[in-house]
């Protein structure tokens, strides 16, 4: 019986009944976004933003990089317009993520539009690792909820107790998100094409730091995806 099921599983590809995200995966998303929410809220409140505005931003902007990009421009003497443009620009990657994943989620556009609010780096990366569209959808919704709910919760907590928390960087909070992202994309880095794309993206992004507005290095890095059009790095027959 068991071997028959295993055989069936092998013939049909990945077991459609398996949980797409393990408990460990969801716990990690929760811990990562809880700590990130705390760190971001504390930062905004200590810079003088009303705690209520910080909380609202977590829910409706739903992008820490956007509010941080605005704050970075504002604290270095930039105008409000420049700050908002910068906040929009760093979120352009979420639009591109949504474009990459959207067609695999639902055929109905209104559903994609609702779910798009949860388009974050890890939720999209985890969904795209799945083989079937069903599993991609499950992974995206599960990952989206397991990161959004802790992130919103900690944004509220962080905004209210910012004075007591002190310096979250001393605890290494600022390295948790890049560490998580690295671990999530690691399987793609085992392949030659993935390595070439990633290394090129890193060089493009770091090369543009300092003399381009925030958000541009990320998007330029995205241009490295075009390398898969070249014959040696093609991932599928065209």
């Amino acid at each position: 019986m068991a071997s028959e099921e295993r055989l069936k599983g092998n013939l049909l590809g990945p077991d459609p009944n398996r949980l797409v995200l393990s408990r460990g995966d969801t716990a990690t998303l929760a811990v990562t976004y809880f700590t990130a929410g705390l760190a971001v809220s504390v930062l905004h409140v200590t810079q003088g933003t009303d705690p209520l505005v910080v909380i609202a931003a977590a829910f409706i902007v739903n992008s820490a990089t956007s509010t941080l990009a605005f704050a970075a421009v504002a604290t270095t003497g930039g105008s409000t317009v420049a700050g908002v443009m910068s906040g929009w620009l760093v979120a352009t990657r979420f639009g591109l993520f949504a474009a990459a994943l959207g067609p695999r989620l639902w055929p109905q556009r209104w559903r994609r539009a609702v779910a798009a609010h949860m388009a974050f780096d890890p939720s999209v990366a985890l969904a795209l690792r799945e083989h079937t569209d069903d599993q991609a959808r499950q992974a995206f919704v599960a990952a989206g909820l397991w990161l959004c709910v802790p992130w919103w919760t900690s944004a509220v907590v962080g905004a209210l107790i910012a004075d007591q928390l002190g310096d979250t960087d001393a605890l290494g909070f600022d390295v948790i998100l890049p560490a998580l992202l690295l671990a999530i994309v690691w399987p793609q880095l085992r392949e030659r094409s993935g390595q070439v794309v990633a290394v090129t993206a890193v060089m493009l992004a770091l090369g543009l730091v300092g003399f381009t507005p925030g958000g541009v290095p990320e998007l330029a890095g995205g241009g490295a995806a075009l390398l898969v059009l070249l014959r040696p790095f093609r991932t599928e027959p065209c």
Partner: protein
Amino acid sequence: MLTWTVVGLLAIGVYGQRVIGATALDTDRLPRRWHAVLTALPLAIIAAVIALQTLTSQRTLTVDARLAGVAVAGLCAWRRLPLLVTVLAAAATTAAVRALV
């Protein structure tokens, strides 16, 4: 400092881009070879995000304790350790380097 107006404008721009991305594209009409580009796009952007979050500060290149933490994360991922172990080891490494240096 964020204000209600700023938060409102950011929300419109960020959600607007997410919705346009999620709904505008119909991959059936996209040539097959561009599917591969679309699949590689998140990896490319995420690789750039990792590098920028690790090696820049206030939009200048900076090498500090974060690099040690992300390097440990890479080591953990290579050894296929659980995600939670990976992120906690990274944070602990960065915190330890900051405490010692």
